[in-house]
């Protein structure tokens, strides 16, 4: 068995999924794959069942928003961990704000259930196939998604923290 380096794993995933793996990099030594949202579930499922890489553990699911990237405003980030090989992999999938839908991974990992609900609660990202995609931390009646960048944190009249006072 060859050593499981990031390069080797990335190559192996590329061989399996080809063009749907949009990019691979290793910021701060963690293998980070940007994948097409349509295959995010497939990649995670494949990694989970692969006899060599053995990803049994979903560490974290969260969302992020990049308002400037047209057509890829939202991002879902999965952190996976192979406890046997001690390898961490980050999978990122960008989805458009006009249609923020991605397949749920709660069928693969129970822990994704609440984390996806939290991501929905914060960003309004729809996880297709989720058993109970409702708000979790905020009140049910809330009619917006508070972590989106368009919602300011503080009242707009406050000026003491504006960038112009700091020469920017």
């Amino acid at each position, binding site marked *: 068995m060859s050593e499981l380096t990031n390069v080797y794993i990335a190559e192996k995933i590329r061989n399996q999924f080809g063009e749907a793996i949009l990019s691979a990099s290793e*910021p*701060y030594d*963690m293998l980070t794959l940007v994948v097409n949202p349509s295959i995010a579930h497939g990649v995670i499922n494949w990694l989970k069942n692969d006899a060599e890489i053995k990803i049994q553990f979903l560490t974290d699911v969260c969302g992020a928003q990049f308002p400037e990237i047209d057509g890829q405003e939202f991002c879902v*980030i999965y952190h996976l961990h192979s406890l046997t090989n001690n390898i961490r992999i980050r999978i990122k999938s960008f989805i458009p704000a006009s249609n923020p839908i991605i397949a749920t991974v709660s069928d693969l*990992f129970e*822990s994704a259930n609440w984390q996806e609900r939290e991501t929905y609660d914060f960003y309004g990202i729809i996880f297709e196939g989720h058993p109970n995609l409702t708000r979790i*931390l905020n009140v049910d009646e809330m009619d917006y998604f508070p972590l989106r960048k368009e919602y300011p944190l503080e009242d707009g009249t406050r000026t003491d923290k504006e960038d112009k006072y700091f020469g920017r």
Partner: protein
Amino acid sequence: MNEFDDKSVEQIEEQEYTTLNLGPTHPATHGIFQNVLTMDGEIIVDAVQTIGYIHRAFEKIAEHRPYNQITTLTDRLNYCSSPINNMGWHMTVEKLIGVEIPKRAQYMRVIIMELARISDHLVCNAVVGVDSGALTGFTYLFQWREKIYDIFEQICGARLTTNIGRIGGLERDFSDEVYKKIKEFLHDFPKGFTEFSNLLERNRIFVDRVANTGAISAERALSFGFTGPNLRAAGVDYDVRVMTPYSSYQDFEFAIPIGEKGDTYDRFIVRQNEIWESLKIIRQALDNMPQGKWYADVPEFYLPPKEDVYTKMEALIYHFKVVMGETDVPKGEIYHSVEGGNGELGFYLISDGGRAPFRLHFRRPSFIYYQAYPEMIKGSMLSDAILTMSSLNVIAGELDA
């Protein structure tokens, strides 16, 4: 014609279920969260959780704060072991900016983190005792927690929400008083803790009460994202301190206690044993404390000494820049995790080079494993469910962020 055919029996049974609100302000939940239980007599048939009562939008606030001001947010995640959260955050930023802090500072951090772990486990196990009817141990153990808080107070001036340490090291060296207090603690605590252990660990009443309740298999625990003592109680020896050592944990000899069945008793015992291991780590750190400075040479992030600020121009500039959050950081994304009191506490940080994080996500162990609670208590008695909850050590601050 039989009036007691299957269908009518089923209907009668269904009417007899009662709905019981466990929480949000129930003394046994030890925090503000709610479980709506469907009860068949004293047996739990179903449970629906409601959480978010103390959601404070930390992830949103973090996007508007300079890096050094986020430390105070992390205090309020798992407030039973704030120093671990603080250190985890400092290490995340240090990793982002590429700073290696001196060995001495790392050892000092290890001592603080292990003290925090002891206080966290003490509260949890004492409360397991309380919920099974043994209040006495709790009243004694809380005195030991106070002693740990005295040490924290001596180090940083605060007790519960400590805001301990700085990006790049610690705010000051340990004083002689700190060493004295730690040594006193190391000397006296084992005796007091042994008393508690003797009271409960092999106590027939206690063991009968907690063994085989709220069990979860290793496989299910992994699927539910369990980490920390709760996962180890199920028999998986995953510990971030060993798997991906940070802050020089590779220098220390310690064992990872594990359980077998993943029940309330195993969780209790794993925490008990981890306290002994933490004591071992603290002793080793004290004995091998390296010489040197307690902060790295990063003037852009680490506040200069106050007397320099008054007399030296450079120090004054850096002081201003640090306080106003005026330092550029590298762009990038980073995930760093530490072994918190309850499991893997992770920080996922996306930096766009600005003075506040572009996105900061906390991987909060309590939030992730608490979703397994209904599965763990279905079919059990209400009184077992209470014990299961306290042995999971769900901390509301970490649950809701």
